[in-house]
């Protein structure tokens, strides 16, 4: 008993001294935190999704406190409500948040494309991709194991006919799925837009055509009909520049003229394809 005490007591005393010194030091040399910080942090959704470009909600709140120029409209999940509250706390004009939704740039479901092989292994997209680029004949498209669905904090992604679909009513635009997808075929687009290219195949037209009836063959028809010059065919696949694709005078002309139907009108009701 005495042996234990002779060991415990000195350690205890050293511990207490250390603790006391630390407490006194932290009280004496406390750095004043911005009193707005807790209020700002309270406003933010706390999803820590990182869509604002800072390291979580704490990081964004800190940046708002310390750097006066930081925009209040960066929180995409919080949308206008949060931007307004932040503006009130910080006493600055609030700007409208551009809500974003995720879209899957692939529509090659099991009716449009074929398997080249069976995949028996770990049931993740990342795992399947390691094996000759996935089991589908198109190595650019959706792998269909739902890695995106597994990271989605809102359960907004479901796999239908082996293709990921985003429920735009549930999607908060955090962008976690865009980072998770091993083929990088999910991107965020402004919520007001309705035209989406549903193909990511970078092969030449003839090769694309062989593996998927939905694939973009790079015919550049959309490029020609777009009145705003917002569509460009890069690496044999059409890409829409959403900065330019606004207030289109002839809305939907690209989708109507698309040879293979890979440009579609996407709408908010969550029906991903409504050609």
């Amino acid at each position, binding site marked *: 008993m005495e042996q234990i005490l002779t060991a415990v007591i000195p350690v205890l005393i*050293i511990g207490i001294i250390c603790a006391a010194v630390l407490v006194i030091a932290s009280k004496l040399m406390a750095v004043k935190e911005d009193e707005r910080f807790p209020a700002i942090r309270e406003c933010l959704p706390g999803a820590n999704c990182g869509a604002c470009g800072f390291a979580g909600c704490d990081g964004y709140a800190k940046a708002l406190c310390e750097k006066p120029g930081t925009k209040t409209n960066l929180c995409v999940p919080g949308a206008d409500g949060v931007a307004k509250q932040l503006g009130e706390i910080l006493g600055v004009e609030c700007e409208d948040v551009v809500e974003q939704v995720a879209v899957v740039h692939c529509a090659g479901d099991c009716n449009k494309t074929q398997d080249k092989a069976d995949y028996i292994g770990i049931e993740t997209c990342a795992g399947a991709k390691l094996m000759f680029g996935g089991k589908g004949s198109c190595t650019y498209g959706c792998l269909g194991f739902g890695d995106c669905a597994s990271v989605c904090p809102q359960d907004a992604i479901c796999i239908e006919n082996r293709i990921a679909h985003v429920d735009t009513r549930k999607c908060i635009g955090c962008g976690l799925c865009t980072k998770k997808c091993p083929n990088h075929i999910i991107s965020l687009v402004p919520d007001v837009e309705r035209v989406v290219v549903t193909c990511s195949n970078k092969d030449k037209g003839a090769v694309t055509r062989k593996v998927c009836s939905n694939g973009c063959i790079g015919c550049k028809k959309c490029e020609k009909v777009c009145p705003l010059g917002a569509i460009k065919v890069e690496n044999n696949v059409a890409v829409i520049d959403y900065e330019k694709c606004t207030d289109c005078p002839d809305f939907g002309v690209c989708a109507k003229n698309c040879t293979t139907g890979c440009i579609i009108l996407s709408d908010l009701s969550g029906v991903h394809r409504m050609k």
Partner: protein
Amino acid sequence: MTKLIIILLSAVFINNYVLSRFLGICPFLGVSKKLGSAAGMSLAVIFVMLMATAVTWPIQMYLLNPNNLGYLQTIVFILVIAALVQLVEIILKRYVPSLHKSLGVYLPLITTNCAVLGVTILNIDEGYTFVEAMINSLGSGLGFFLAMVMFSGVRSTIEGSDIPKSFQGLPITLIAAAITSLSFLGFGGVIENLFA
């Protein structure tokens, strides 16, 4: 005086903490990607090593040894080092905010750095006097600095070169670390002969 120089040089080159004793490998691999952060981390380590030795050596000699409590060495040292690092962080945050910001997360990370604990314990094991212990800590810190800065250079070279896919990332880093550590083997026996 000669003994102090021998201690210093052997701590930097021969018994280099990272490359010969294999202590503090975690920051060696984790923070050596950029030269700036590697140097910042190493400076923080030098600072904490010196502080830790200045506190733990008297504790061992005047508190633990007279009371036959030498077996408490590890736990007491960890306790003291952790408290010390926290104290240093509070002080830096208050008085030198710029340094605090540039050290960033590395300062609290050092709390559990085995190189720091290793230095304090080896100082006791080697039977150094207080001055010798301080010199040894300085040398160990400088050795850490040298290894970190050197290795960050190695890594930036690796980044620019064409590496087979299966070796990319950590595997090639570990191989490079092994070769760098091998190169320090060449210093063995140099110091003794230098002052013989």
